[in-house]
């Protein structure tokens, strides 16, 4: 049986080289550094204060790669989102990460709230409205033990020796925290985290509130495009970046 093609077969030379450089055991190059601004504003102001709160924060355009087809049955997908603009600021003991990317298709819905009463006691149940839609999403990944690891974890959701934390936001289902120790091990714990998202003029702007991370920590970003049927490893990803 073979359903999972080796990643390297389908990937282009550029992607291949970036993935190899991102394997566990390598140190990111200086070109992958991300400057971290310091702000005296509160974390809440940066999270909810609108664009003005971020005026002075340096931006870096981070290239995104498209994962190669992971399964024989995957439809091919083109690189529609080539990059994500990243702003990072340390404020009030938190690290705020703003991701900004262009996505002409707004793949988000408001699902009907499920009442707290048991379904058998209700006249009507909440119904599945569609079964073939996927939603825009983004995530920030970093080592679960930042500062302690001298080397970056595997870009594929960490590895056994280098677990990762993933702060995942979904345009429909909201924010959730995940942990992983390698591909296929991603585990959602029940926790959420503060996030603020807006979609305007074909542009997503999502602000993640992370715990403060020491400089030298590696972080990586991922973006999912719902209309490209993105979910799981079918997504856009950056290579590891280093917080200055």
């Amino acid at each position, binding site marked *: *049986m*073979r*359903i999972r093609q080796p990643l390297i077969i389908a990937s282009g030379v550029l992607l291949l080289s970036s993935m190899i450089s991102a394997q566990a055991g390598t140190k990111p190059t200086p070109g992958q550094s991300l400057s971290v601004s310091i702000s005296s504003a509160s974390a809440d102001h940066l999270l909810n204060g609108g664009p003005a709160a971020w005026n002075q924060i340096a931006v870096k355009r981070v290239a995104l790669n498209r994962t190669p087809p*992971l*399964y*024989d*049955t995957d*439809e091919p997908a083109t690189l529609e989102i080539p990059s994500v603009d990243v702003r990072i600021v340390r404020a009030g003991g938190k690290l705020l990460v703003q991701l900004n990317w262009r996505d002409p298709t707004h793949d988000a819905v408001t*699902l*009907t709230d*499920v009442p707290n009463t048991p*379904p*058998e006691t209700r*006249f*009507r*149940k*909440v*119904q*599945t*409205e*569609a*079964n*073939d839609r996927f939603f825009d999403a983004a995530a920030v990944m970093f080592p679960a033990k930042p500062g302690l690891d001298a080397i970056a974890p595997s870009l594929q959701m960490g590895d056994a020796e280098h677990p990762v934390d993933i702060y995942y936001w979904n345009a429909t*289902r909201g924010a959730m925290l995940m942990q992983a120790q390698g591909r*296929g091990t*991603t585990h*959602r714990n029940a926790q959420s985290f503060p996030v603020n998202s807006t979609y305007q003029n074909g542009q997503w702007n999502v602000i993640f509130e992370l715990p403060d991370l020491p400089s030298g920590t590696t972080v990586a970003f991922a973006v999912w495009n719902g209309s490209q049927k993105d*979910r*799981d*490893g079918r997504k856009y990803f950056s290579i590891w970046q280093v917080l200055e």
Partner: protein
Amino acid sequence: MSRHQYAMVMDLNKCLGCQTCTIACKKLWTDRDGTGYMYWNNVETRPGLGYPRQWDRIGGGWKDGSLQPSPLPTMDDYGHAWEYNYEQRLYEGKKQPVMPSPEPKSGCNWDEDVGGMNEDENYFFYLPRICNHCTHPACLEACPRKAIYKREEDGIVVIDQDRCQGYRYCIKACPYKKIYFNEVTGKSEKCIFCYPRLEKGQVNACAAQCPGRLRFVGLLDDPESPVHKLVLIHKIALPLFPEKGTQPNVFYVPPFNPPKRENYGKSIQEDPRVPLDYLIYLFGPEVEDVIVRLEAELKKTQEGGRSEALQLLIGRDAETRFHVRPQLVQIQL
């Protein structure tokens, strides 16, 4: 391979299309939020569109060891669940008639009894369907989360709701389209072969409720079980679309001899009411041997002899039809 394998045999000659099995299943398992459109057990008219529409033609399964591509069926293919405005009519005094909403445009067994034409004669039969709990499940292989597993003790295929992330690769991979996405929970669901009932010595709800007594349940590897006898000894039951490569553990006794006009049908090779080609489409070329075998058994009884196979198919009581072995499914944690 699991140590044991639960299996079901359905005798299509006896199915009335009454949907009692469908309702038994629905009341027990899919009367929850997000599950209105789901029928883990459904009965569809054949030939026909099926549920979801064209499920038998859109893909999935195995070919040469590789999973085959398939689109996801849409809600129009399944049919949106509809509700009736009982509140307005019964409690709020509105004079309007009781109407379904949204307006039904497709659904489970939407083309009931339409069937097909064989020369100038109409024909149809009913095909009840549940998850096939395959020996080689494409859904299990397709899941990147390893959320689907085949129970070692009895071969039942289930989805771990804690591991499932609703990616729906399993739905695409299943050639029978017997996995359903619940958008409310964000996870996929399927027939669980009523394992909580089996573990208590009770047979599956669909089989227990079937007025036509056409369902037989037991372990395929248990020589005492009716499914073992029908599939492996008498060899009169076949899986659906064997070429999909998943090795289903639900088997069907094909409709073999409905008469066209007279009291008794002639041989399918002589004057078939249901075209043999269509049965071959559903059950593979082996169906012809099965029908010849069934016709020989029938002839034997018509000439005053006794047929063990037909006696079993009559399925007079639950003891004959069901052979549940709860002691085999104790899970050691």
